[in-house]
């Protein structure tokens, strides 16, 4: 876990500072999620339990937006689970790095998300990698859940559309996808996924086009000619 001295270690100050900045942004995002969830018909308890147990923003937002648009539970689940699958990819990497007893590792698995993975992989030595993982994962967990609760309480008191919160989500996704566009393969997958999704929106039930967009990962099937294989690089801490 995070020993107390980690917070006083000067070499980790940049990580702590970055985690706190990130947590502020996560807070804004979490409030938007809470408001959106309650507007889509979730109770305050449902919104909070979702953030506590699911704890992966894009999946939660995707599920809520499908429900808000009148989609079924099954289609909301499908799209959200495809998004959640990327945490499994991050977990492949973090499972090799994070040490500890089983309960510690069970908690670590839950904290394996875009931000904690990216911050950890940005460090040079294994000790700093583990510390960055726990500091970032822990602070994002705390802020995401407090913000969800606040947003859910505000809930229907504000109309998300009036405040442009419906544009906040795609804007957040833009920031998340940006680091993925550094490689040609990433750009191809992003373009193909977007085209598949938009092309299918008018003809398939809400939530299903996102599932189909995942087929765009097949651009990764041909072996790369250059030695630079895109690694399982998570979205950078936004």
């Amino acid at each position, binding site marked *: 876990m995070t020993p107390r001295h980690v917070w006083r270690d000067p070499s980790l100050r940049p990580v702590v500072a970055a985690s706190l900045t990130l947590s502020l942004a996560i807070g*804004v995002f979490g409030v938007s999620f809470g408001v959106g969830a309650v507007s*889509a018909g*979730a*109770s305050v308890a*449902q919104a909070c339990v*979702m953030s506590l*147990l699911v704890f992966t923003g894009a999946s939660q937002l*995707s*599920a*809520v937006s499908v*429900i808000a*648009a009148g989609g079924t*539970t099954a289609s*909301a689940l499908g799209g959200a*689970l495809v*998004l*959640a699958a*990327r*945490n499994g*990819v991050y*977990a*492949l990497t*973090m*499972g*090799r790095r994070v040490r500890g007893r089983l309960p510690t*590792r*069970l908690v670590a*698995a*839950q904290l394996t998300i*875009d931000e904690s993975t990216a911050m950890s992989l940005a460090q040079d030595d294994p000790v700093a990698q583990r510390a960055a993982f726990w500091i970032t994962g822990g602070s994002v967990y705390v802020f995401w859940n407090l913000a969800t609760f606040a947003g859910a309480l505000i809930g229907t008191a504000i109309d998300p559309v009036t*405040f*442009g*919160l*419906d*544009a906040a989500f*795609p*804007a957040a*996704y*833009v920031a998340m996808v*940006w680091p993925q566009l550094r490689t040609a393969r*990433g750009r191809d*997958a*992003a373009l193909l*996924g*977007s085209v*598949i*999704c938009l092309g299918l929106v*008018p*003809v398939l039930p809400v939530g299903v086009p*996102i599932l189909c*967009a*995942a087929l765009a*990962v097949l651009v*990764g*099937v041909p*072996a790369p000619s250059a030695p630079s294989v*895109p690694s*399982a690089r*998570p979205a950078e801490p*936004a």
Partner: protein
Amino acid sequence: MSWTLVLVLAAGAYACKGVGFFLLAGRRLPAVVDRCLALIPAAVVAALVVKDTFSAGQELVVDARVPGVAVAVVLVWRRAPFVVVVVAAALVTAGVRRAGWA
């Protein structure tokens, strides 16, 4: 929204993390599988951008979200902090709506 959705999603999301963390972390996957898995965020998150910008239910629409997201793209390109990107997009969309332009 149903509790089924909340709880099944929670179980599924943790299962994704757990499978990677406990079952697969020690093994080598075929290179082709690694390459495809690494592209999931690019494919799916890009699709989410266009879906949440250009669709309302099953209809494709161009409304006040488009200028908001366009501003977000410029800000991300100019390396603005995440919180600035999100707040600016919301403000632009809200402003365009309030002005009655879209």
